[in-house]
């Protein structure tokens, strides 16, 4: 825990350094720079299982701090969304009884705040109006901003990934079968949301997320799915300790690397499409989580990750192809609606319980969504 904890501290408190390093790369980074400025205020957010009370609904443009306190019984998340659910800022994985801070620079505009108790769905929303002079970004600026925005998203996911993976591996090592089973799809949610980033580290992805049978001769079967197999197939994790340690340390490594990555706009566009391809090839087939059958958790996470990547590009896309943005919005909504039929409690229906017709409905919606998302790359490249 010590290493990742230090990293989070570094990001949260010394974000000014991030700004410096990015500036050195030639990027303007107002969001990261915001971390260096004193926030003008501290807006309380009272989150529970059925409420999300934000102390202010009108703010002046500038840097603001939100302190989110979770008084509910479920883990929650807090988001500040711009139009089209573009994530301006978010804090993940707020456990019951815990308070977390979020600092964000908000230009003038209309926003929505959302708490997501149980970490799923659209969340409990409120309007947030930020007044002041709106500044229009140039074309290059809005594309550069997309990379920065998405990096912020990745960093919020990696933090939660590390925490939940640690909780998962701790449960495995403690022999807590039911606890580990419950944490498995939760930890994977954060992994699946940023999978294209993780996969860009070709050496780590196979040992963290490889499926049985994918290994070259002489390679061991390791990672999430090795432990998944033990949990669901044999129910015996007594020999999983080394695999748990290795998984945790590999996730630490990939988190450290992922936090340093800024994707360019074309990589973002391709990543958004790649996540949909993941759904079509791995989740709809039930291949990904073949022992636990928690594939719909991964499906949902891939979908959210794809939408985050597209939405990071939204300001640019809206000025260059508003019709495409509208179509993508419609199809994301349709896919979410299709998927929402299979919510079950705080999670998702087991893959095994889905009928062929239901799978076909999910497949059709992903096929329909992929067509317009696949066109984003060309719009970005037109610049």
């Amino acid at each position, binding site marked *: 825990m010590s290493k990742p904890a230090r990293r989070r501290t570094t990001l949260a408190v010394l974000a000014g350094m991030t700004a410096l390093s990015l500036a050195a790369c030639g990027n303007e980074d107002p969001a990261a720079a915001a971390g260096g400025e004193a926030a003008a205020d501290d807006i309380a957010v009272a989150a529970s299982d059925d409420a999300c009370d934000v102390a202010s609904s009108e703010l002046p443009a500038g840097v603001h701090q939100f302190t989110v306190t979770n008084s509910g019984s479920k883990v929650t998340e807090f988001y500040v969304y711009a139009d089209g659910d573009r994530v301006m800022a978010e804090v993940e994985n707020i456990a019951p009884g815990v308070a977390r801070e979020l600092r964000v620079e908000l230009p003038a505009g209309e926003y929505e705040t959302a708490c997501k108790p149980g970490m799923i769905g659209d969340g409990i929303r409120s309007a947030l109006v930020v007044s002041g002079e709106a500044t229009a970004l140039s074309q290059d600026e809005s594309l550069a901003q997309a990379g920065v925005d998405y990096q912020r998203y990745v960093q919020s996911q990696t933090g939660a990934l590390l925490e939940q993976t640690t909780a998962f591996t701790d449960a495995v090592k403690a022999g807590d079968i039911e606890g580990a089973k419950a944490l498995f799809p939760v930890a994977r949610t954060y992994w699946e949301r940023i999978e294209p980033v993780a996969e860009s580290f070709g050496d780590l992805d196979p040992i963290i997320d490889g499926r049985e049978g994918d290994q070259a001769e002489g390679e061991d079967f390791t990672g999430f799915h090795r432990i998944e197999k033990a949990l669901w197939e044999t129910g015996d994790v007594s020999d999983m300790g080394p695999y748990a340690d290795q998984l945790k340390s590999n996730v630490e490594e990939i988190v450290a690397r992922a936090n340093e990555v800024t994707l360019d706009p*074309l990589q973002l566009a391709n990543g958004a499409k790649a996540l949909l391809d993941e759904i079509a090839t791995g989740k709809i087939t039930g291949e990904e989580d073949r022992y636990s059958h928690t594939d719909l958790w991964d499906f949902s996470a891939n979908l959210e990750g794809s939408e985050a990547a597209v939405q990071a590009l939204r300001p640019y896309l809206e000025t260059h*192809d508003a*019709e*495409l943005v509208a*179509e993508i919005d*419609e*199809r994301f*909504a*349709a896919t979410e*609606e*299709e998927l929402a039929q299979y919510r079950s409690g705080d999670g998702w229906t087991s893959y095994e319980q889905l009928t062929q017709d239901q799978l*076909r*409905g999910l*497949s*059709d*919606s992903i*096929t*329909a*969504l*992929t*067509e*317009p998302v*696949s*066109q984003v*790359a*060309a719009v*970005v*490249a*037109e610049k």
Partner: protein
Amino acid sequence: MSAEGLSRRRFFGLAGAGTAGVIAAGAAGGAIGRATAGEPLAPPASTATDAVPFTGEHQAGIVTPAQDRLHFVALDVITDDRAELVEMLQAWTAAARRMTAGQDAGEVGAVEGGQYAVPDDTGEALDLPASGLTLTIGFGPTLFTTADGVDRFGLADRRPGPLAELPAFPGEAIDPAISGGDLCVQACANDPQVAVHAVRNLVRLGAGVVSVRWSQLGFGRTSSTSSAQATPRNLFGFKDGTDNLKAEAPKALDQFVWVADDDPGADWLAGGSYVVTRKIRMRIEQWDTATLADQEQTIGRTKKAGAPLGQAAEFDPVDFAVQVDGQPAIPVRSHVALAHPTNSGTAILRRGYSFVDGSDGLGRLDAGLFFIAYQRDPETGFVQVQRNLRTDAMNEYVQHTSSAVFACPPGVTGPDDWWGRTLFS
């Protein structure tokens, strides 16, 4: 199911450009795009690589001389939004005009859109000629009223009576997963890659609006629809389709194939036809171990020449009065005897294809005939014939495993016309 989410953008690219594209296609023929093979508006293809005209009084692909290859697809409509469906049909029409002329499916083309664009044509037909491609569309009963009685598109009162699910027949083993469908497209071409390319691109254009229910490849025609064609052999090794309805007999076509002006649904269907498809599994191994005499008695023709039993040549008249050794030369339970118009009292235009879908897991060939027949009314066409085949000696060697029926509208006439206009307007 959300009614939202139509690809207006993509459709607009195709349909919006339709008029200009059509004029270009009409004027320049195959000059743009991949084809160099000839004028698409010339008379019916005279060689295997030519284009077949897309427009006309009737849809192409019915009496068009049967091409060698088939890709048939049935689709379900997954939107509830009529406007989305109409827009897709318009986009399909634009793409069909282009592809049947030997051009790319989309305006931009498979490789002309730049490195970062997703190509609007999938590219596997680049460098291939039109290859006689025809695309024929049909509308199934469930498009008008769903199986549970819902009138999704306000079409229920436009469903002609004859467009109804086929009755059950003895001995069949119909698999619902490969039967029925709201829409169908029959793609026929002399190059299998051209037929597959056409279906693939139409399906892609339909993302979010339609979903493929089933599809079937056919590798060899089993019928002649023109007297200019030689009669092919089916997988039983027999010539099939000798006495088919043919393009050269327009009066018979009017009587048995085309929906007439006073038929049900004529307000939109006149000049169209009904297509029935049946996947007929052949019991290949049992057939192959039957004696030649048994085979010929089962069919009612000779295997070598295809002559009716008791005659010498393929096109000799089928004469049920001829006797051999005091028995009818053509056995009364032979396939020819029972299916022939003389005994069935009707005629259909057969356009089927042989299929081999690999093996069945028991080492047996999963093969047979993908039967396609066009008729003016299924009840007095296929159904009447099939009822008469109840005692067919051939039943021992075949089993029907799929069933579907579709109403095929009349041909697309002008540059602004589109598939289904008469139904949806």
